[in-house]
């Protein structure tokens, strides 16, 4: 089974949640979905993030009963795992977005018996973007600029950090001049510390090597250079 089919099947399985206004598919699968025909050749991870605005939690919980092919993990109920007869699906992570916070240090856990959420500050940089329709599944995506910045404002270290930066490499492949302008504007609104982190992470991305089955950052170096120059302007 191709990864693309696993990804789309998983999103079909959680389609009731994707119908809730404000819910977005986030994280590393977005570059995969933005490829032509959602080709999903830029496999970075084997899970998919559903971003839930904290204000939409009750509406999302009301839809959970319609999800039949995945079930919450016993250790971490915000992670939903494929049921025994749905092994072609991948894991789903429910994560929270609170527009009142943006700094990683403000990240908190929203306790809830049915669907507890880790609410990550930088997720509030996401803004609703394109809604894809793939094989009959409606997939709301964030605008690429916010997603790239969300990946870039957090301290990224080690293997997981590199993978997150390679998501940005994948996004740069598809970003239009309007997306880059959008990124510049949103970047300009960030506090100085977070702007510094963005530039620092872009420089790390520029010097990363290629990895199998992940977006190759090397052809993106010129784009990273141009982006850095735009962001470094006073």
């Amino acid at each position, binding site marked *: 089974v191709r990864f693309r089919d696993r990804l789309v099947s998983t999103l079909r399985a959680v389609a009731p949640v994707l119908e809730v206004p404000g819910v977005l598919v986030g994280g590393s699968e977005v570059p995969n979905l933005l490829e032509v025909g959602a080709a999903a050749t830029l496999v970075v991870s084997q899970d998919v993030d559903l971003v839930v605005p904290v204000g939409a939690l009750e509406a999302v919980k009301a839809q959970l009963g319609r999800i039949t092919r995945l079930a919450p993990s016993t250790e971490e109920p915000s992670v939903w795992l494929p049921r025994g007869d749905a092994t072609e699906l991948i894991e789903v992570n429910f994560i929270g977005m609170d527009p009142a916070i943006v*700094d*990683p*240090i403000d*990240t*908190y*856990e929203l306790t809830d018996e049915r669907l507890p959420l*880790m609410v*990550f500050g930088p997720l509030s940089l996401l803004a609703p973007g394109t809604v894809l329709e793939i094989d009959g599944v409606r997939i709301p995506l964030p605008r690429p600029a916010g997603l790239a910045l969300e990946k870039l404002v*957090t*301290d990224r*270290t080690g293997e997981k950090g590199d993978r997150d930066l390679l998501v940005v490499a994948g996004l740069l492949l598809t970003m239009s001049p309007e997306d880059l302008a959008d990124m510049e504007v949103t970047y300009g609104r960030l506090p*100085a*510390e977070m702007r*510094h*982190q963005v*530039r*620092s992470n*872009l*420089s*790390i991305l*520029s*010097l*990363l*090597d290629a990895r199998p089955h992940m977006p190759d950052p090397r052809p993106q*170096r*010129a*784009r*990273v*250079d*141009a982006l*850095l*120059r735009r962001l470094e302007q006073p």
Partner: protein
Amino acid sequence: VKAIRARARVQRWSFRQRHLAHGAWERFRLALAHAERAFVVDEATAGALRAEGCAVDVAGCDLEPPRVIMWISAERAKELPSARELPLRLSADLLASTHLVLVPFTDQP
């Protein structure tokens, strides 16, 4: 949550230290990010380039030992007999080089 907040605190600390060693490292890395190609040269070649009027980029000055970084054109780089091109990765080879000449990106995408 504790781990995430701890990482964020470290990130803040790093930001405050940016004018010290940590900042020097980041300036060096940013210079490399702006380079399309990098060459390591010997001290004599670096001296000759300086005599030609090539300015030394301060991005390498605060490292220990200091790295001499100069920006030149791709054409000029080809003329340097001792120049050895290095891939622009954070490799041991590149980090150990004390005299680096960098070629900037010219065609902006």
